[in-house]
């Protein structure tokens, strides 16, 4: 921090902003205050790695007890579960786009494949089969394939890794914009395939249920635990949190590894990377595969949560939604992407439809704000690109490159801390 005497002030401002946001999204008051405290401390001790670690632990504990302060369903927690699941996806996309610099506009394909894995293996969709593995209660008696959720996760991860690499293959010789076009096409293919899958039969088994959706999908059923319920979202929240922590762990470990350095080298200069001994094909495919795997995990979770696998979920706009989280948070920045995902989820599912929706009609305009939500995202991104191209919580490298490198560090310090409050 360049102006030490301002530190307490900035920390206080960050904490204040955190409380404000907490109350706006109807977070419990006590929890908002604790969050504000953690955020304030994080900003104040930003330069002390040990303190930062301690505060991170505090934040995890805070997140674990968070559901206990809210009603079990129908309120704050609904969006919180979604935010965590989307954060998992955004972290996956971050590996592809943020680390390796491969602009993937078809990430929805992995959401679709993960969700379909849940649709096939956790429902009565394959009606003739009668397979039950490690499931309890009603799920153990219904026709269809009913596997335990961890098994479905493994299947989703494997399928998505393979799909990610297959989609990656034709882009290997391409660069930049052309990668975006090819992945965009794959995303569309996945969406169309799910949409028209009810017309495609293989051995009497339909591929999907199209718009009608595969429904119901089994509620998540973990070994040794009661099956999850739709009316109590706390277990869902904790499971999503566990997935997020796992993915965060993997992200951090990979970033600071041989592979992570190779990805960033690839992003910076492909020719130089190859000349330094980085095998392009393998490195790129690993990025696609790892990134896709996280999308699949989250997709399977969301399918069970939303109880349906339905063609309308898998549209191009979803890819953009996740990409916007990555860009808003800061390309390549792990913390930033989580912040971006939480921020956009709340803007999309709480702020626009619940808090601000009737603002236009109140000032005499004849439309709801929800009709404009993508317009609002676009506007946010434009503002970001102009004011803060490195993202809300920028990657260390980009921050130095874009801000400190040019020598306007003074303002950046202040901006950064205010922004971290939104975590």
């Amino acid at each position, binding site marked *: 921090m360049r102006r030490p005497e301002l530190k307490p002030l900035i920390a206080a401002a960050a904490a204040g902003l955190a409380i404000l946001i907490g109350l706006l999204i109807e977070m419990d008051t006590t929890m908002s205050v604790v969050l504000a405290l953690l955020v304030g401390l994080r900003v104040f001790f930003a330069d002390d790695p040990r303190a930062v670690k301690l505060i991170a632990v505090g934040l995890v504990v805070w997140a674990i007890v968070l559901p206990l302060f809210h009603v079990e369903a129908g309120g704050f927690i609904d969006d919180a579960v979604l935010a965590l699941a989307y954060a998992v996806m955004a972290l996956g996309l971050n590996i592809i786009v943020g680390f390796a610099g491969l602009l993937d506009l078809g990430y929805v394909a992995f959401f679709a494949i993960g969700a379909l894995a849940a649709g096939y293996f956790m429902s009565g969709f394959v009606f003739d089969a009668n397979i039950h593995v490690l499931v309890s209660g009603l799920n153990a008696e219904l026709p269809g394939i009913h596997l335990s959720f961890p098994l479905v996760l493994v299947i989703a991860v494997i399928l998505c890794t393979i799909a990610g690499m297959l989609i990656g293959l034709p882009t290997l010789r391409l660069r930049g914009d052309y990668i975006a076009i090819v992945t965009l096409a794959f995303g569309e293919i996945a969406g169309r395939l799910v949409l028209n899958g009810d017309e495609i039969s293989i051995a009497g088994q339909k591929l999907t249920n199209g718009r009608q959706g595969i429904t119901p999908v089994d509620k998540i059923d973990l070994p040794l635990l009661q099956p999850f319920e739709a009316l109590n979202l706390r277990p869902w929240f904790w499971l999503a949190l566990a997935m997020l922590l796992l993915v965060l762990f993997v992200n951090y470990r990979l970033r600071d590894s041989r592979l992570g350095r190779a990805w960033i080298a690839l992003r910076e200069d492909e020719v130089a990377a190859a000349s330094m*001994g980085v095998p392009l094909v393998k490195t790129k495919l690993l990025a696609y595969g790892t990134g896709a795997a996280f999308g699949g995990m989250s997709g399977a979770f969301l399918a069970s949560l939303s109880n349906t696998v339905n063609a309308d979920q898998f549209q191009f706009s979803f890819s953009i939604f996740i990409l916007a989280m990555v860009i808003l948070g800061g390309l390549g920045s792990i913390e930033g992407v989580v912040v971006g995902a939480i921020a956009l989820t709340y803007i999309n599912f709480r702020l626009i439809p619940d808090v601000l929706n009737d603002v236009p009609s109140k000032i005499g305009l004849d439309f709801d704000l929800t009709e404009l939500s993508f317009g609002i995202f676009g506007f946010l991104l434009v503002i970001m690109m102009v004011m803060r191209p490195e993202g809300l919580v920028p990657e260390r490298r980009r921050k130095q490159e874009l801000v400190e490198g040019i020598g306007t560090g003074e303002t950046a310090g202040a901006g950064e801390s205010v922004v971290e409050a939104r975590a």
Partner: protein
Amino acid sequence: MSETEQPPAERRSGAAPGGDGDASAANGRLLVAEQVTKAFGGLVAVEDVSFSIPQRSIVSIIGPNGAGKTTFFNMLTGLYKPTMGRISFDGKDITAKRPDKITSLGVARTFQNIRLFATMSAIENVMVGQHARMKAGLFGSILRLPGVRKEERRVDEHAREMLSYVGLDEELHSQLAINLAYGDQRRVEIARALASGPKLLLLDEPTAGMNPQESRRLTEFMRKLRDEKGLAILLIEHDMQVVMEVSEHITVLDHGEKIAEGLPEDVRNEERVIEAYLGRQSDDDEEEGEG
């Protein structure tokens, strides 16, 4: 990129070791290029060039702009696939091998216009240079197994060593490459190349943008590399003073063809070389899109 190029007409003819390669290693020739040709569509950038680099030597390729020097370089490092011809290194055929494979065999390079990884620190840049010498895989890195941890520490230490060897101040080691001064960037690029543990170092116009004093220091450094590290160095250079001073052998390219080679003093007086540099009557204005 290399993958998009058409496959070379004649490569690795199945009849395995091709006595020539082994013989060359025995003769003390580290790299041998035989009748190498590169055509981009109808444009022949390098035509029928044969060339070799002895062990522990400093040799140069010179020639006017567009002579095909960098194209030739790119074939040696695998960025381009030769249309025809054969290249062997250390007794192994490397014709049209992938760049990363060639690097791991012991060929490292720098670029004419510095190509560091801008948003990585100097150390990280040099660590990437050691990629081919590391083993850590996806799962090993996630779990950070003891072997991986040890390897990371070793690579980090080696990177610092290399940076000190090329003379980068210690406080600059963790600076982002993009924030370094031009001369320091050149240093980091050489350190990055050295970190891959090469037997042959290719330098593409390393003194570009340097003042005479800096050039002289670099010349000394090249000799030091040859004598201390036992490296062979291939140099593309425009600064004739540097070339004449440091090279043991010079090859002159013009319009993609080899027009002369030999000791510096011989080449200097060669009529065709003087012609190529000063121009003949009128036909010398075309550019070949690279320098």
